[in-house]
């Protein structure tokens, strides 16, 4: 952007895109806000009326809300921990020279290309199913009682499925970061008397800090809205034990036909997502500065 003239031209040219995106965001947001103050149930058409904050009151005092909030945080946190620790470990392995490196790297990335509904169904029916699943067969072969994953540990099972999907993403980002590490730094550390563990914690981990930050931020955005995996496996159950906020809003508006309550839930979710974002940026945002 060299001159005033080119700056003005750039602003002019970029404005349609900015306006379109702004409209795309503002209109649904305004409608959600508007509906959240209405009594608006699809089973009672023509009965819409202004009810103030009553929707919020019902949504926030619903016992399912607190469960969903905890589940959402557990889901996001659990998947982040698994994918980052697992991702660093896999990236370290894939960074080593070995035969068939290229093929293995592509295979590792593969789960990321499988749609969430598909992979969840595969997990549900072929692995975790207590009768026909692979794990059930393995348990029976060992003479053990098959474990009914979705009944006994529904949230943990979903965390497992989602982690399986996101592990490749974390691995890929961390692997590229690891490859950009100057080998001479590692050699210098070796000369300085640092063993493998010291080299990992003093040289590699600080180098990976920025990549880890990127992984956390991007994954958090997507993990807050995990939905398909829950819908096709547990339907949020048993009870509310695997319901997250996104799923609760879906249940409110489309299973109970309460559009007003669902909208209030949506607004609450927006506020909570922003709180999470502020905390994240406070904690790790400094890693992204030059």
């Amino acid at each position: 952007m060299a001159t005033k003239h080119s700056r003005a031209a750039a602003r002019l040219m970029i404005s349609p895109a900015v306006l379109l995106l702004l409209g795309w965001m503002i209109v649904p947001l305004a409608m959600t806000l508007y509906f959240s103050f209405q009594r608006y149930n699809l089973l009672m058409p023509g009965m819409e009326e202004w009810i103030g904050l009553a929707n919020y009151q019902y949504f926030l005092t619903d016992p399912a809300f607190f469960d969903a909030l905890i589940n959402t945080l557990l889901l996001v946190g659990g998947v982040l921990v698994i994918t980052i620790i697992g991702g660093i470990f896999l990236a370290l392995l894939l960074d080593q020279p070995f035969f068939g490196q290229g093929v293995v790297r592509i295979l590792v990335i593969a789960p990321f290309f499988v749609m969430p509904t598909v992979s969840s169904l595969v997990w549900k029916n072929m692995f975790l199913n207590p009768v026909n699943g692979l794990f059930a067969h393995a348990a029976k072969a060992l003479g053990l009682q098959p474990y009914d994953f979705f009944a006994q540990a529904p949230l943990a099972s979903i965390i497992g499925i989602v982690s399986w999907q996101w592990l490749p993403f974390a691995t890929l980002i961390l692997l590229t970061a690891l490859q950009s590490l100057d080998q001479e730094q590692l050699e210098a550390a070796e000369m300085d008397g640092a063993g493998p563990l010291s080299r990992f914690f003093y040289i590699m981990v600080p180098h990976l800090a920025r990549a880890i930050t990127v992984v956390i931020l991007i994954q958090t955005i997507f993990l807050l809205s995990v939905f398909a995996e829950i819908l096709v496996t547990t339907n949020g159950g048993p009870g509310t034990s695997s319901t997250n906020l996104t799923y609760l809003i879906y249940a409110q508006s489309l299973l109970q036909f309460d559009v007003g309550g669902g909208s209030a839930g949506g607004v609450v979710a927006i506020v909570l997502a922003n709180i999470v974002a502020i905390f994240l940026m406070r904690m790790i945002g400094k890693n992204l500065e030059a």
Partner: protein
Amino acid sequence: MGSITLEKVQKIYGNVEVIPGIDLTINDGEFVVFVGPSGCGKSTLLRLIAGLEDVSGGTLKIDGRDVTDIAPAKRGLAMVFQSYALYPHMSVRKNIAFPLKMAGVDKAEQDRKVEAAAKVLNLTPYLDRRPGQLSGGQRQRVAIGRAIVREPSAFLFDEPLSNLDAALRVNMRLEISELHQSLKTTMIYVTHDQVEAMTMADKIVVLQAGNVEQVGSPLELYRTPRNRFVAGFIGSPKMNFVEGEEAARHGAYAIGVRPEHLALSKESGQWKGTVGVSEHLGSDTFCYVHVDGIGTLNVRTSGEVSVHHGDTVYLTPSEANIHRFDKDGMALR
């Protein structure tokens, strides 16, 4: 406390012999420079000594102790890398203290040693900065500081000045030489720059294709090169080589005359030629003179001499300083 002995040290990558087998003795307190063209194996040799590469054959001894299969950190050597290899996320203080921390030295002792090293290297005002906030020369000094605090038995330098600009390079060259004078520790220095080799070394090791061509003091190599390669590599500008009739007259396959051993005259002399290019440096003038039947000769004269393109000049070699070589490029004495 820092003599290094190499006995038939070999390095083989796959089926490529990078270093076919080197015997070399480096005495305690010596400043040894490995010099040679790119790809001659000088950096590989340094990395073998450091322990960053595995030796394929032969033995390596430090102070008489066989260290061939010992981990780099246990050899008691410190290395300064070409890229400096500073840890970018640590302050200068932490960078310098890192080897001490790894060795489990207590905090107060660490601080004392870091302060002392920083004082020697004029880094005290920069101790709390990150490497990214330092200039090239300062980073270089931090890298040296990190090497000094370990009190190694020998320092290894891998082309440490090649990323610096010309003026800074001269400065750092002096600083490293002075450091050697004050520490009296063995230093091994790898460079492709023969000026650095000549100015800094107690002993120069000239390498070509993984072989030691000659070992000696700078002036020894300058005065009595063992072969044509060393003769051409040491000395700046390069030695002129003449083959054929003129060489046969001296009873050799080829003769070599350094530019500074040719006298230039406008009136009379042994060889007659025309000036192609003259480079006026102020203190010196280098003339590229085309001589019929011999080729182009580079002549060094004083800066006062004024010759220009197309001038006819006469050259006379100083008979005492003619180097004679046989057909295989070995010097005849």
